């Protein structure tokens, strides 16, 4: 009986969500939007802004937990310590005691930074509050919006009207947004909009009924890893540390993996050419790791964000929670995969090359 009531009310919630609470139609823009213009730094994108919060969060966590560590674990620091210890045990299992100790700081930083970023990206402040601008795709319409300014933090919070009045523009008229009755004309490409250039005003949208929000929100918060630069930066660090450790452990002989002219100089032409080719392949694969690292993480998290936006748009209640759970899982797995692959690459880099044994 109780199960039936729960099921019915859940279905009712889904129905209410679908039919009465239309979410904002998501506009999928890959590049992070610039939301602030600060002196010296210049344009600040939303992913940068969010990543600072993540960094500050982790730094504060490190300070507060690091100082409270004790032999008898207790409270929050004990929990953090347990998580770190679990990760450390995995690292030691993969890389062994000595190498594990050497690789652990990088692997752990990668894991916990990506994990925190991904989970931060699931907070409901993401992709909701932001600057509004006219959608270039609807440049031939104008959108009446109500916007109120919230003095705290000085952020403009745009409330998305569920039934915006959209009016077809007369030919040659500029697109504008009407805020509380005041018209603000938008040039198609604002200096702070990072969006694609507006096409020539066409009349392709004429006659369509537009439901939902016809402007764009450039959110102040956006999941960090949906910005390609973030995974790329981590991948660069991962790559550099792996090469560094390889050189540190094996010395110059590490480079023989890439430049193996030994057989060629000895006169074995066929084997030598093959070796050189293999070295070249090794070199390329080493570089391509960076690319695969970057796009694996970026792709997963960006796709997750798009999925969440779409599901919020389609089924605002109940069902979307399933996808939030899925994204929790994906965020963890991607963080783990990035850290573990770095670890594995590091282990292969410091282990002796097969040819040396011959």
């Amino acid at each position, binding site marked *: 009986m109780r199960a039936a009531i729960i099921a019915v009310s859940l279905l009712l919630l889904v129905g209410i969500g679908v039919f009465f609470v239309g979410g904002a139609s998501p506009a999928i823009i890959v*590049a992070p939007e610039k939301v602030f213009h600060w002196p010296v730094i210049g344009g600040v994108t939303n992913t940068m802004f969010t990543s600072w919060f993540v960094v500050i969060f982790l730094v504060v966590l*490190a300070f507060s937990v690091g100082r409270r560590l004790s*032999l008898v674990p207790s409270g929050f620091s004990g929990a953090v310590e347990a998580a*770190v210890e679990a990760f*450390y045990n995995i690292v030691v299992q993969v890389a062994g005691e000595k190498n594990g100790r050497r690789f652990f*700081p990088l692997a752990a930083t990668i894991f916990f930074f990506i994990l925190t970023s991904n989970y931060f990206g699931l907070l409901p402040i993401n992709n909701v509050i932001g600057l509004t601008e006219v959608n270039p795709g609807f440049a031939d319409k104008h959108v009446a919006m109500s916007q109120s300014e919230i003095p705290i933090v000085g952020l403009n919070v745009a409330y998305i009207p569920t039934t915006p009045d959209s009016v077809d523009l007369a030919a040659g008229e500029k697109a504008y947004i009407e805020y509380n009755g005041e018209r603000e004309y938008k040039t198609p490409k604002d200096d702070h909009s990072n969006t694609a250039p507006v096409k020539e005003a066409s009349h392709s949208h004429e006659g369509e009924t537009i439901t939902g929000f016809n402007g764009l929100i450039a959110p102040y918060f956006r999941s960090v890893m949906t910005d390609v*630069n973030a995974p*790329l*930066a981590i991948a*660069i660090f991962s790559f550099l540390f792996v090469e560094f450790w390889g050189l540190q452990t094996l010395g110059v002989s590490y480079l023989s993996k890439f430049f193996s002219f030994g057989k060629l100089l000895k006169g074995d032409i066929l084997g030598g050419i093959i070796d050189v080719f293999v070295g070249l392949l090794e070199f390329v694969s080493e570089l391509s790791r960076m690319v695969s690292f970057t796009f694996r993480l970026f792709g997963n998290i960006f796709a997750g964000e798009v999925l969440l936006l779409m599901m919020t748009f389609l089924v605002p209640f109940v069902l979307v929670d399933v996808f939030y759970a899925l994204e929790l899982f994906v965020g963890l797995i991607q963080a783990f995969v990035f850290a573990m692959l770095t670890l594995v690459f590091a282990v292969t880099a410091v282990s002796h090359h097969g040819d040396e044994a011959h």
Partner: protein
Amino acid sequence: MKSEKNRERPNSVVGFCRYFLVALTAFALAAVPTMVVAAEEVEGISKLGINIPGLIAQLVNFLILLVVLKIFLWGPILKVLDERKRRIEEGLNRAEQAASDALATEEEAKKVIEQARAEARAQNLRSQEAAAKLREELEEKARQEANQIIERAREEIRLEKEQVVQQLQSQFADLTIHAAERVISQSIDKSAHQRLIDEVLTESNFGQDKEN
């Protein structure tokens, strides 16, 4: 404690330098796509959002995290883990030692108790024997003493009897003589006769005489 701290410092300095070196290389590497983008305005890359300020910002972020977490979180946590592991190992070893010690002690105690019991048993046997012997001796002695006393008493009785008999004999002789004298000296009839004997007997004062 102090030496440990001193040893640590150069390590962290070296670590810091290493991070710095790696970071420098990272930034140098970041310059490559910048130039590519700047030179050719690669449509795809900039559409994806790869741009130099963003990349540099993320590199800086990651570097800060790497250094700060290494110094303030990973380092201390690993130290605590090591210390805890060491303590636990120590404790386990000590517990094992204590257990084996206890076992040995118990064994020892058992041995001692067994020994004591055997000794006590022997002692008991010995004392029982001694007691029996003593009793026998005492009994013997007592019997002897009793015999002696009886013997002495008999002797005394015999002597006394002899004495009395002797005394009686001598007194009786006197009395007889005395009575005879009287009888002879007077002619006497039967009644006088009896009177005479009574007189003699009264005069003799048989019992008291001896005591006087």
